[in-house]
């Protein structure tokens, strides 16, 4: 019973953040459901063996979202006014924003690092853990990405 209560608390405290994180990292709203469902189901199934269920949940969401983003990113995109009107939009825009086109050009790594550090508020060390990369690599990746964004915005 204590386990059920703990899982419930985890659910209440993390649900919104995990949905938001998955939405940003997947870059497509239709991938969110699978990623978050899978992650919570895994936590429930493995709960007795987990030292840090919250950390495991976050890592599972990040990894699942990155896999989904890579899979989508790898698909071809056709952009033509009369073609795109026939094809389903993969990433429906929410309003218009001057950063959208620039963000769309970021690689999956750049985008993930940017979201984890500048949206989710993870430290560089935490982000490095989640991305399974050295902290220094993540720092320079974020720095270069910001520089690139600034340059693109100024252009």
């Amino acid at each position: 019973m204590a386990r059920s209560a703990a899982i419930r608390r985890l659910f209440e405290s993390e649900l919104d953040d995990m949905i938001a994180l998955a939405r940003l990292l997947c870059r497509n709203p239709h991938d969110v459901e699978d990623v978050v469902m899978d992650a919570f189901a895994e936590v429930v199934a493995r709960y007795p063996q987990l030292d840090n269920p919250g950390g495991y949940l976050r890592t599972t969401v990040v990894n699942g979202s990155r896999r989904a983003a890579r899979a989508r990113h790898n698909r071809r995109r056709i952009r033509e006014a009369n073609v795109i009107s026939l094809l389903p939009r993969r990433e429906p825009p929410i309003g218009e924003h001057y950063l959208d086109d620039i963000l769309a050009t970021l690689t999956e790594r750049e985008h993930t690092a940017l979201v984890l550090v500048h949206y989710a508020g993870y430290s560089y060390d935490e982000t490095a853990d989640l991305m399974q990369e050295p902290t220094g690599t993540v720092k320079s990746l974020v720095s270069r990405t910001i520089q690139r964004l600034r340059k693109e915005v100024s252009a």
Partner: protein
Amino acid sequence: MSDEQLLSDLRARFDMIATDVPNRQRLAAQLREIVEPPRTRPLLAAAAAVALLVIGGFVAVSGFGSGGPDAVDVAAERVLGFEAAIEPDRPSGRRFASTLSGSPVDLALPDVTNGRWSVTADTDALVELTLTLAAESSGEDPALRLFIVPDLDAREVANQLVSGLFDTDVLSESQSQLGDLKGIKVAMASRQGTSRVAFRLGADTYVETVGIDRRYLVHIFTRPSGSFVVWLDAAQHDFNRARGEADRLRSSIVLGD
């Protein structure tokens, strides 16, 4: 613009995107079923098992990686002809016919051991065939794309392709042949993990992919109205097998006038 302003705008945009989740309430309800089952442990296990089955079902339904279980979206894609699976029990060598930029294209989809070809795009601008390999279902399946670049010969297309690569190395360039047509074959690979390859099909039209650790093999053939392109795009670890399967498929292509 200052970094502070840029980051502030970025966070605001991220905030807005983060809330754009369709069926959020349904998702929350489904998750609640996982974490808040009736009070006994056997039922908790049963609920988790059901949830996993539901997830498995969603994956099976979405099939081609559309990702979400939203039936309307999946149906919409099918109505639009975006996904058109070839039945696994199809007769060997089943023909597939399409039209690219007004030119008929006909080919045979060979049987694949422990895998299958699917038609994942069939439009006037592009035909895309995806090779699903059961053993390596990483979500980044090899793809063979067929399209026509109007008004350019094979050399011009190859030059344009090579000049527009991003973090992608050209490994080799050699001659290619498709029936009586002679062409150019360009082999490429991702340089630093992620790479981008694009073809311009018109003033506002292009087809591109961004991939991680990919290998590419492009065959380009000059035709009267432009160039016919056959583009294999596969992960490094799938490439050799995908190339063999793609060569079998490519050799069956018949182009109409």
